[in-house]
């Protein structure tokens, strides 16, 4: 659609004003939010406006021909549109937004926002949608006394804590003639990790066991015993066990272990802060996928060696929230946050 520039500007200004007005009117939302009358807005859709035009044509024709049946038809359809308005409004009324969960995302991608809706008023609520400013989310039907889930993708342009902003729950049920909606202003934030980038080789933690060779192919972690089978190497037999009068057992090793790493911000010289953070993020991802254990050191913060999803999140979140110290002051020593 080609609209003149002034029109777009006007619409944008108007939208901003409306958003500010709604924000002032409703205030911040503390979940769970139950949708009450005063926060549900309703307007006809494009189809609704078209329907109104059709009704006008029918009315004029009916009046002109003094045709009672045509007029009656017109009035029935007019009544239907009012029913539709009512039903549309009611479709949101008393719906409860129980939870909003945000998933962290990398800068430059999209963050997933989960909404958990609850119908507890004893009325099925078909066709509930979610969207935000400029994005559309998923649709769900809420059965009676049940939960429904909605998802929304939000663009995450920059690293840091991004406020969720406002989220809109809408419905055009039942006839698509009206759209009822409500704005939510949840206090949630999205942790935006720095975008992983950079191709420097992964450093190895100082003091890691290097060169120690254990039995078993590429394995270093002893994981248990199993009964001896034909063909097992005598070097793997647990002789101590055998010595206790027990049968021949074989030591087993898991292939998981790898060397510990330390990712140090300070060690990445020569690059800007954001590039360094991106490189650290890259390493964390790589280490995680390689199954390695790793520690992270940032100016003023240190995260102990570990691995797993929780550890990954802790490290990446630290990168996301990292504030370079102001130029005038010297970097704080690590015990500041320890």
């Amino acid at each position, binding site marked *: 659609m080609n609209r003149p520039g002034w029109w777009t500007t006007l619409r944008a200004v108007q939208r901003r004003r409306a958003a500010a007005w709604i924000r002032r009117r409703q205030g911040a939302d503390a979940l769970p939010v139950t949708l009450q009358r005063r926060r549900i807005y309703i307007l006809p859709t494009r189809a609704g406006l078209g329907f109104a035009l*059709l009704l006008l044509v029918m009315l004029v024709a009916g009046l002109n021909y003094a045709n009672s049946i045509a007029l*009656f038809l017109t009035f*029935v359809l007019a009544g239907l549109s009012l029913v539709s308005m009512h039903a549309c409004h009611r479709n949101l009324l008393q719906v409860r937004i129980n939870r909003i969960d945000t998933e962290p995302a990398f800068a430059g991608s999209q963050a997933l926002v989960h909404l958990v809706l609850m119908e507890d008023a004893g009325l099925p609520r078909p066709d509930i949608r979610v969207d935000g400013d400029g994005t559309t989310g998923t649709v769900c039907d809420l059965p009676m006394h049940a939960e429904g889930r909605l998802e929304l993708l939000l663009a995450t342009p920059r690293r840091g804590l991004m406020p969720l902003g406002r989220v809109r729950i809408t419905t055009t049920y*039942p006839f698509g003639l009206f759209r009822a909606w409500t704005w939510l202003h949840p206090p949630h934030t999205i942790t935006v990790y720095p975008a992983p980038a950079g191709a420097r080789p992964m450093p190895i933690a100082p003091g890691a066991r290097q060169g120690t060779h254990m039995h078993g192919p590429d394995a270093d972690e002893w994981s248990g015993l199993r009964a001896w089978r034909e063909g097992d190497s005598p070097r793997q037999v647990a002789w101590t066990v055998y010595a206790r009068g027990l049968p021949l057992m074989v030591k087993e090793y898991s292939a998981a272990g790898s060397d510990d790493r330390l990712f140090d911000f300070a060690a990445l010289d020569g690059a800007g802060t954001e590039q360094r953070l991106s490189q650290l993020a890259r390493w964390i991802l790589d280490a995680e996928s390689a199954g390695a254990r790793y520690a992270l050191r940032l100016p003023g913060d240190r995260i102990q060696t570990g691995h797993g999803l929780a550890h990954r999140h802790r490290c990446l979140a630290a990168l996301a929230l990292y504030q370079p110290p102001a130029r005038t002051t010297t970097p704080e020593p690590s015990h500041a946050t320890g």
Partner: protein
Amino acid sequence: MQPGDDRRARLWLLGAFLGGIMLHLSQLPPWITLGALLCAAWCLAGIVGRVPLPGKRLRGALVAGLTIGVLAAFHTLNGLAAGTALLALMGAMKLLETRTRRDGYIVVAVALCLLLAACLGNQDLPHAPLYLVQAWLCVTALAATAHPQAAAHTRRLASLSARSLLLALPLAMAMFLLFPRLTGGFWSVGASRVSTGLSDSMSPGSISELGESSDPVFRVWFQGPPPPPQERYWRGPVLHEFDGYTWRRTPGLQYPAEQLDYTGAVYHYRVRLEPDTGPWWLALDTIRSTDAAGATITPDRQLVARHPVHDPVTYDAVSYTFTRSTDRLNHLTQLLDTALPPRRNPRSVRLAQQLRAAAPDAHAFVTRVLDLFRHGGFSYTLTPPLLDLNSVDDFLFNTRQGFCGHFASAFVTLMRAGGLPARVVTGYQGGEWNPLGGYLLVRRSDAHAWAEIWLQGQGWVRVDPTAVVAPERLRRGALDVLPDAGSASERLMYEITWLNRLHQGWDAANAWWSTRLVGYDFHAQSRLLQALGLSARSWQQLGALLTAALGLWLLAVTLSFNRLPRARPHRLARAYALLCARLGSAGFARRPDEGPVTYARSLATAPQAFGAAARQLLERYARLRFGADTPTEAELEQFERDVRGLRLARRSSRR
């Protein structure tokens, strides 16, 4: 809409469109119907069998070709018929490209417009259910288009639209009654249809042609009892001129009026004329006044419309069954109503002159002539033999078989030949009383002709020669008297009582439909508002009424359908709440997170006087509420009584 996901929605659209076409099946040219059906079949194949739909270029060519086709067939794109045809074709084209939701909405709009066109074309009761079904189909298609995923549950979708329509109905009624109507249209609507009522001429056999049909002509609702059968003369055109074969009324000729005294029984009634009755509106003889806006009462007591009206008409009128006039007849009337064509019906004229000469006065002359009809071997039949140009002579002296027109014509000729001013009155006589609807139904087969003669000192007196020949005609109607009146099935209907009753019921429903719904126009609205005490027809008042109706409707809908179910507190819970409130007033309020046992424990510091009793009550509550056995009515009652009977000693605060 995702392809595949919306199949059911498209099926509903197809259904709505086909429904619209079906409504116009009898009016549309066959090639258009065929074209629309072909498109529908193609669409169906596309939905079911995944046949590819035509491309853009083919559709464009089709649209152009079809538009030209319509132009060629109707010579215009304007007007209802051409518009409907065009709409049907465009809808069919749109059906072939239902890809987006918007396309779906357009098809629904086309189906609704087809429905509108059908309503404009025909408002009969038998069509009403079709319209209803079509409206439901359209609304369902709309819902399915708006929410294709909801279309998967066919029954739920169908009931959603049906319920919504039902909910809309009361509001539609209110708007229908109160929305301001126009007296005329915004633009004039040309209509060219043939009127099927009485005409302003009568030749032998013309009335019997009417008698062959039993279509309704008008219905009459009386305030009070209806007149007896022999008084039910519905006056139509009064015919003055005779050329020996045909009676006529000269158009535009102003007939002079006489001064009348209205006596006899008075009847207030409302007439509802079927459409296309022609300019001759009917009224019970003799009409005194009417509120019919488009018609006037002529000097010879007819009700004549100023302009031809093709729509159904309703009017109120007041009539008296008897009039007299002591005036002298004015000269012009005397001249007109004694004139006979020269050299026509010579034998009849001679006979009349003989009879008049033999009679001592006018009364005796009339009696003699009626005696002639009574004893002259005349018979009453719907299929009389054809007459020659001297129709009265031929009838009186040869055939002697005739319908009412023959007798009236012959009688008036004889009267005029005898020097008495006389005229033929056509109209209807009788009517069938419908006890279900409380109205009198007059059919075309009730068409009748009679005579009026001027007697000095009495004025115009109605004489019905047919009544002399076939007296039962007045009491029982033509269908009963004449074996060949009406079609075979109508006669059957007439003879079998329960079938007749059924027929009457259907007619009553039709009458209600056409008067109350179809006939609800500007005048009916005015009458209704007057009855409501709203004398001034102001838009403000209507607006206020409409707003009030809307408010009431919204309230009703909100109350009945918006009530989100909320559990009523259990009886035991009420008693417990009372107990807690009473203990609270004594300074021992229950915290919301305290259960009955914890609460009872917190009463340890309460005075002995009621502490023990209260604790015992709380334990009982815990047992009744959370125990395995459902509390009996007696236990509940006892508990309630004990809660009310608990004696409290006041204390400032608990903790």
